[in-house]
């Protein structure tokens, strides 16, 4: 007597509840199920800034949004089709994001006077008609869960805690997902606590069965598997992908990875992940501060390791002076900056792209570094490898600009084969590379490779190559201290030239213009990739032709950047800052790149950008 199934191309679900309600876990599990089912997907967790904000308050609301589809997915979705709200705060905090007609599932047990008052509801919104344009399923989730666990020898509190599994079970039923993968997960997680294991499985199944039985839901939905390239997939967040990228790069370079880091949101997880990977020869040092973190990385690089440091904006500011030293020493260094809302402490748990100019210019003197940014959570893996490639090949600091959205967002990842990863083998210099005035062999620490302008990497322990490096200007070739004006001019040019030369080994910009006749280009960098592509898709559906392209390398820019920009009558650049990259492009190419900016701590909505495209295209047509 199973209910009718309705086919959907895509659905966006948001789980929201109190910090203690386990919404992140619920979201994660649903994600795993969807992934396992073969959907393409993208996720967006959203944490409160407090560790445990007071229960039932708006500040304590934690949510997890998930976009699943039968085709490739580019963003976690603009607005949820389904909201699961575990309490009044969760409803209130998220309602504004819902389009009319969305489905809302609420736990009526929590809609008591106290909880309503906490968030300023005089009357329950379930009763005052204010939700009439939504499909509301008001269920006493807590008490049904407790009832379902009547037989279990647990405290009432523990039973109540299982309500997230009940909700998950219900959603699994609603979207015709088997509960088996989550059951497996629960079994591993609670292996040592058989009581909780049994209760959670029971709650999950009860939720599933509730859907099947109750008349509240008329039919179930099905989102078919997306057709994705052949391969083995897993789901992965940006921070984990980035960590793995660093490990993979060190592995392929044959170098030890040494991380010097100081905890800071939203970068700390990279430290956490890497500190668990000692089996891969990874050394992590939790330093006394950010300066020590980068100092440790530079010291390790001097010793022939791959020195890495990870941080977020305020930490990058503190590392500035030492990064400048690394520029002068010309040693490999990877600086990962997971951007968050600024200025100052700003919005630590929110996303932003406002550290681009800091990355490029936040040091004294002419102090060029390479800067690259991943485009999506999975791209964090490849971007980390690329950062390591540039750092080691060019003996330079590379700043890798991730952001809070990429860090915590997740998507399916086609697991690469290790042999498909680039070979990053590094050769240390072991022999003198020149002769002194008397013709005797000599090591010249600043004699450069003509291709890359990189200087030799000769590490302590190598006999005969003893040398000293430092932050005072040094003479070309010999590396001795030099105050000579012409030498300073030359070295400044060489350092700049070396970074510029990186452009020779990076791919050209690729333009996506399926119609072939777009007059408007939308260009992005970093995590705006998904929303831009998605926006272009929807704009094209309404006949608005647009080209898109994406900058992964922010310094240097790809060789064809000028040519691409000049090809279009209008160039629009959405950024989660006040137009930082647009400024760089305008200055470099004198192209009237138009900024579209938002500084709201949230990724762009594809619909917002689609509207920008439409307006621009229409405006252009009008003036034809």
């Amino acid at each position, binding site marked *: 007597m199973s209910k009718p199934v309705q086919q959907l191309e895509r659905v966006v679900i948001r789980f929201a509840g109190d910090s203690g309600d386990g919404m992140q876990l619920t979201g994660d599990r649903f994600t795993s199920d969807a992934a396992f089912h073969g959907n393409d997907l993208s996720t967006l967790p959203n944490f409160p800034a407090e560790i445990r904000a007071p229960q039932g308050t708006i500040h304590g609301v934690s949510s997890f949004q998930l976009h699943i589809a039968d085709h490739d997915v580019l963003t976690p979705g603009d607005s949820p089709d389904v909201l699961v709200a575990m309490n009044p705060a969760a409803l209130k905090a998220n309602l504004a994001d819902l389009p009319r007609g969305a489905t809302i599932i609420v736990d009526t047990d929590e809609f008591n006077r106290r909880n309503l008052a906490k968030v300023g509801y005089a009357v329950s919104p379930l009763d005052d008609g204010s939700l009439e344009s939504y499909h509301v399923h008001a269920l006493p989730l807590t008490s049904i869960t407790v009832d379902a666990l009547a037989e279990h020898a647990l405290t009432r509190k523990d039973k109540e805690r299982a309500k997230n599994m009940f909700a998950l079970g219900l959603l699994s039923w609603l979207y015709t997902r088997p509960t088996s993968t989550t059951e497996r997960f629960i079994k591993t997680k609670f292996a040592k606590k058989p009581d909780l294991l049994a209760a959670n499985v029971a709650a999950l199944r009860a939720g599933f069965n509730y859907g099947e039985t109750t008349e509240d839901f008329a039919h179930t939905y099905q989102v078919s598997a997306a057709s994705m390239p052949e391969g083995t997939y897993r789901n992965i967040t940006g921070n984990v992908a980035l960590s793995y990228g660093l490990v993979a790069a060190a592995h392929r370079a044959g170098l030890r990875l040494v991380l010097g880091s100081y905890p800071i949101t939203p970068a700390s997880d990279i430290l956490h992940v890497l500190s668990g990977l000692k089996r*891969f020869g990874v050394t992590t040092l939790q330093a006394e501060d950010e300066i020590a973190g980068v100092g440790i990385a530079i010291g390790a690089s001097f010793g022939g390791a791959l020195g890495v440091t990870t941080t977020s904006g305020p930490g990058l500011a503190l590392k500035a002076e030492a990064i400048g030293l690394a520029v002068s020493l010309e040693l490999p260094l990877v600086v990962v900056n997971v951007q968050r809302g600024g200025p100052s402490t700003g919005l630590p748990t929110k996303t932003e792209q406002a550290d681009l100019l800091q990355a490029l210019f936040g040091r004294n003197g002419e102090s060029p570094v390479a800067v690259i940014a991943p485009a999506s959570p999975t791209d964090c893996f490849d971007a980390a490898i690329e950062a390591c490639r540039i750092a080691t090949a060019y003996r330079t600091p590379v700043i890798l600009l991730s952001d809070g959205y990429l860090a915590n967002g997740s998507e399916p990842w086609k697991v690469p084969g290790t042999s498909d990863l680039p070979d990053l083998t590094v050769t240390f210099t072991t022999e003198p590379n020149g002769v002194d005035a008397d013709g005797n062999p000599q090591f010249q620490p600043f004699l450069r490779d003509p291709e890359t302008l990189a200087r030799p990497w000769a590490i302590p322990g190598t006999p005969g190559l003893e040398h000293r490096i430092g932050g005072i200007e040094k003479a070309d070739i010999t590396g001795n201290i030099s105050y000579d004006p012409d030498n300073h001019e030359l070295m400044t040019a060489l350092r700049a030239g070396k970074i510029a030369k990186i452009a020779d080994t990076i791919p050209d910009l690729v333009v996506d213009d399926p119609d072939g006749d777009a007059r408007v280009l939308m260009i992005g960098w970093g995590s705006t990739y998904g929303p831009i592509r998605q926006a272009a898709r929807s704009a094209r559906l309404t006949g608005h032709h647009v080209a898109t392209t994406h900058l992964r390398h922010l310094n240097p820019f790809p060789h064809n950047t000028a040519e691409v920009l000049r090809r279009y009558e209008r160039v629009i650049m959405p950024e989660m800052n006040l137009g930082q990259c647009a400024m760089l492009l305008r200055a470099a190419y004198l192209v009237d790149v138009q900024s579209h900016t938002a500084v709201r701590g949230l990724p762009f909505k594809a619909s917002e950008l689609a509207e920008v495209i439409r307006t621009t295209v229409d405006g252009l047509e009008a003036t034809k």
Partner: protein
Amino acid sequence: MSIDLGMPSSGVAFVPHLPDGATPLGRKDFTSDQDVRWCPGCGDYAILAAMQGFLPELGLRRENIVFISGIGCSSRFPYYLDTYGMHSIHGRAPTFATGLATAREDLSVWVITGDGDSLSIGGNHLIHALRRNVNIKILLFNNEIYGLTKGQYSPTSRAGTVSKSSPLGSLDTPFTPVSVALGAEATFVARTMDSDRKHLTEVLHAAARHRGAALVEIYQNCPIFNDGAFDVLKDKDQAAARILWLQDGEEVAAGDHVAVRADDGSIQIVPRATASPTRIVRHSIDTEHPSSAFALSRLTSDGTLAHVPMGVFRQISRPTYDDMVRGQVSAAVDAGGGPATDADLAGLLAGRDTWTVSG
């Protein structure tokens, strides 16, 4: 003189030594081709000379020795030694040294720093390197002034110092570097002086032998901006009465005076004649408790140099941070069956929760 090199407890235990029978290195081998550019008469010359004489005695391969400095006159030191070296940025040398020493157990890593570099801008890195007990040797050239920036008072300048930035006298109570180090869980703390080549060399040996972080305060004269700060210790007669040579197991004494433990927990210097024998301080460098060393360190805190302990205040054995870090890594590697292979990496990337899409 030669030090105990084979012991895993030595500071240079895992640093390659010259093979038996190899021609020993000499002072010249440790002299770089760069012109030395300190002011005439600067105490740094004497320390450099002592170091160039001392390094060959270690019997290490030259290429396995690294000097890392911050910024200051003293921090020019690495340029003059023909070893690997890094002249870094102000105050941060311990951080680079920590990274290097942890990444490479086969190096002997020395930090050269000044009183401003280590205790003003760099104070935090210093105390953290000490508490962690990273296997690095920190030589703090204390001239009680900022030399390189032309003579401002420093965190070790005596209160009331008239300098360019304190025309009416400085107001800050100075640090006693040895006290700071002991308060920060240091395992090795010593003091010596630029002009006393023999003692300086002895202390350097002890520091090198120590497996862990060693802080050596070196009183150093700056003839330009703080001339004669330690003159009373250089005058033979005065020195005899002022300097308490610390020797493990020996009484702490100078001339006819001796150190005694007072009721209030402090150490006082009194005429031997008046000292109760049971109160006389017998120095022990390796007591677990740093309290006695700390009490000794207070003898100089009044800035008069009336009683100055010289030598090793404390030298205890505690596992080093870098050894333990490497130990955790190698245990994990061993447990995994040796260095990670491509297959191990593949396993990591895939994780435990994969699914397969077939064409």
